[in-house]
């Protein structure tokens, strides 16, 4: 019951007029930016970071929550109306959503997606309220070796679950870890990889890395391959659902979170896997199997609900363990660090007003999202027609504003461009971007935990594996590492028996 009273206090914070205003601005900005083609949630959140610099933390994070959910919803609008999803989690929305829009049922597809987001978000956030304090309470006792194990798990999971090539994922992670090394060593004050430069001694700001890799890298990559004739967006009216549609979809909305939430909480790449699993489940359970691939509404409703719930699941591990499992969570963690706040088990004790205000505003944001997006959908659809030169020039412009706002240094802009060029090269050669961002954010923290653990054990390596928790986590890491080998061996034995 403790969390219930805290939540009510949280609503007290979230429902003050000024915070309500920040939430509304966040939802509107998030949707507007997320709808723009080529901008996924991670880039939207990274680009909008500087907007919150002048705010106090509570207001900033309330706005942030709105941006997050708004950007996710905006992304699915793009895939339904344009059929060219910008990020992997929205791929599934396009499979059924776009055929629906083509056959004149775009309004229903958008409504199914919007209500799916609402339902998934509501259920997911409720689970967050129930679970997060418990997880945080359990995690209070875990020490340096356990944290290190969790971070190693995040590193390995992010490089081997995502993407087609582990070597390339690992290369990306190591690039990120290297960027994270730049600056003064936290414990001894030694300069590492600074080459005598005073500006580099402060380290490279995580926000600049995130904006550089996500925004500049993407804009430059698109510029190199700009489609001369961009896809035509399908015009759409105000979203609505008939009684038959509701009858077909309400179960899908409720099933989505069961798949989405647990996947969001573990480091398995966020919404990509659960949306796909939800799609397959809906297809199997549907009474209208023949419609799948041609515009089955369940195939929009379920995955969208799963995606939204997985976003809530992501917040569980982000807030209670300080462990980002998706690109958006990584950027949010960077935002917390900007305010000098370290997410982790103690966050719920130290900053109850902030955390519960944030959680309450997730509920508020969801309601705002539904209330604003159903009537505004035709306006959002118009944003899809923005001329591409303006869109990508705008991305570069706001990325520059964001990087400059961090410290008011022109040199930061040069660093931003260099990291952007790295991002461009990574996209060209199929190196996933997310491991690099995770490496930059978690690298320094992991080093600190490693040194702390070894200090306690006086340098003996057994100090890294002397708790049941860390041993369990390393076992999971080993399974992840060994999995492809096992599969290869299994295939080989298959072949020999045939």
């Amino acid at each position, binding site marked *: 019951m403790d969390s219930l009273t805290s939540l009510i206090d949280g609503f007290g914070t979230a429902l003050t007029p000024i915070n309500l205003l920040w939430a509304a601005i966040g939802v509107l900005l998030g949707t507007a930016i997320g709808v723009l083609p080529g901008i996924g949630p991670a880039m939207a959140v990274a680009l909008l970071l*500087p*907007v919150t*610099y*002048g705010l106090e933390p509570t207001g900033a994070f309330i706005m942030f929550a709105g941006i997050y959910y708004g950007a996710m919803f905006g992304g699915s609008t*793009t895939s339904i109306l*344009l059929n*060219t999803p*910008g990020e992997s989690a929205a791929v599934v929305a396009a499979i059924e959503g776009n055929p629906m829009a083509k056959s004149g049922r775009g309004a229903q597809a958008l409504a199914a997606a919007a209500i799916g987001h609402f339902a998934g978000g509501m259920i997911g956030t409720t689970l967050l309220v129930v679970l997060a304090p418990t997880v945080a309470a359990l995690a209070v006792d875990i020490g340096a070796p356990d944290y290190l194990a969790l971070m190693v798990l995040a590193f390995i999971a992010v490089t081997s679950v995502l993407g*087609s*090539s582990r*070597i390339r994922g*690992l*290369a990306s992670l*190591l690039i990120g*870890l*290297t960027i994270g*090394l730049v600056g003064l*060593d936290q*414990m*001894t004050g*030694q300069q*590492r*990889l600074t080459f005598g430069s005073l500006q580099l001694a402060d380290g490279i700001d995580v926000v600049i890395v995130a904006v550089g890799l996500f925004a*500049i890298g993407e*804009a*430059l*990559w*698109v*510029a*190199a*391959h*700009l*489609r*001369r004739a*961009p896809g035509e967006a399908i015009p759409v009216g105000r979203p609505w659902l008939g009684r038959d549609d509701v009858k077909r979809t309400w179960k899908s909305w409720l099933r989505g979170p069961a798949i989405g939430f647990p996947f969001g909480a573990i480091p398995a790449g966020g919404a990509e896997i659960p949306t796909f699993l939800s799609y397959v489940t809906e297809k199997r359970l549907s009474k209208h199997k023949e419609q799948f691939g041609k515009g089955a509404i369940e195939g929009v409703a379920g995955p969208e609900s799963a995606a939204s719930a997985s976003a809530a699941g992501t917040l569980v591990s982000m807030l209670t363990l300080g462990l980002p499992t998706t690109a958006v969570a990584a950027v949010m963690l960077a935002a917390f660090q900007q305010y000098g706040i370290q997410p982790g088990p103690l966050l719920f004790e130290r900053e109850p007003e902030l955390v519960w205000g944030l959680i309450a505003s997730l509920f508020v944001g969801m309601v705002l999202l539904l209330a604003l997006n159903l009537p505004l959908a035709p306006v959002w659809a118009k944003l899809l027609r923005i*001329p*591409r*030169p*303006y869109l*990508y*020039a*705008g991305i*570069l*412009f706001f990325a520059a*504003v964001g990087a*400059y706002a961090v410290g*008011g240094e*022109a*040199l930061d*802009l*040069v660093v931003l*461009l260099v990291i*952007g060029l790295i991002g461009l090269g990574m996209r*060209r*050669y*199929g190196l996933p971007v997310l491991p690099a961002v995770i490496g930059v954010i978690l690298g320094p923290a992991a*080093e600190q935990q490693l*040194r702390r653990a070894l*200090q306690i054990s006086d*340098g003996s390596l057994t100090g890294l594996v002397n708790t049941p928790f860390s041993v369990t986590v390393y076992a999971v890491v080993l399974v992840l590492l060994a999995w492809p080998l096992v599969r290869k061996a299994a295939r080989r034995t298959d072949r020999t028996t045939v």
Partner: protein
Amino acid sequence: MTTVKSVLRGRSELGVGALLFLLGVLVLTDALTLDADVAGRGPVGPGTVPLVVGCGLLVVAVLLTVDVLRGGRGEAEGGEDVDLAEPADWRTVLLLAGVFLAFAVLIGPLGFPIAGALLFWGAAYALGSRHLHRDPLIAAVLSLLTYAVFDQLLGVPLPGGPLMGVI
């Protein structure tokens, strides 16, 4: 020599392996030249993790090179506005990078409103927009509006430059 050439053709990805290797060497050199006196605090000094990362980079560089020579390819990333069928247009990328560097140089002397407008206009031009009147107008309005919103409303200071001194 022809065999070497034919092996190298279409394998610009080998350059990625080479760059990773160089980065690894750089990290290792930096780690090994750290001041040893200060490094003595605690069992793990400031050089340990860089050593691990540097060695990791070398190993990955070698593995990646082997993968590429065996025919492995990094898949170029797709997207809404990305047309991979067309050959890459590196001229645009260079132009954009140039415009961005110019912005970094000009923001000090010219201030944000002017430098920002030039950034947007230049980038839009590089990306193929050729509206002589509309482009600069949008750039100027966007830049002034952004300056006003960030500097006045959101409390994020941006340099006004000589233009704001006049107004």
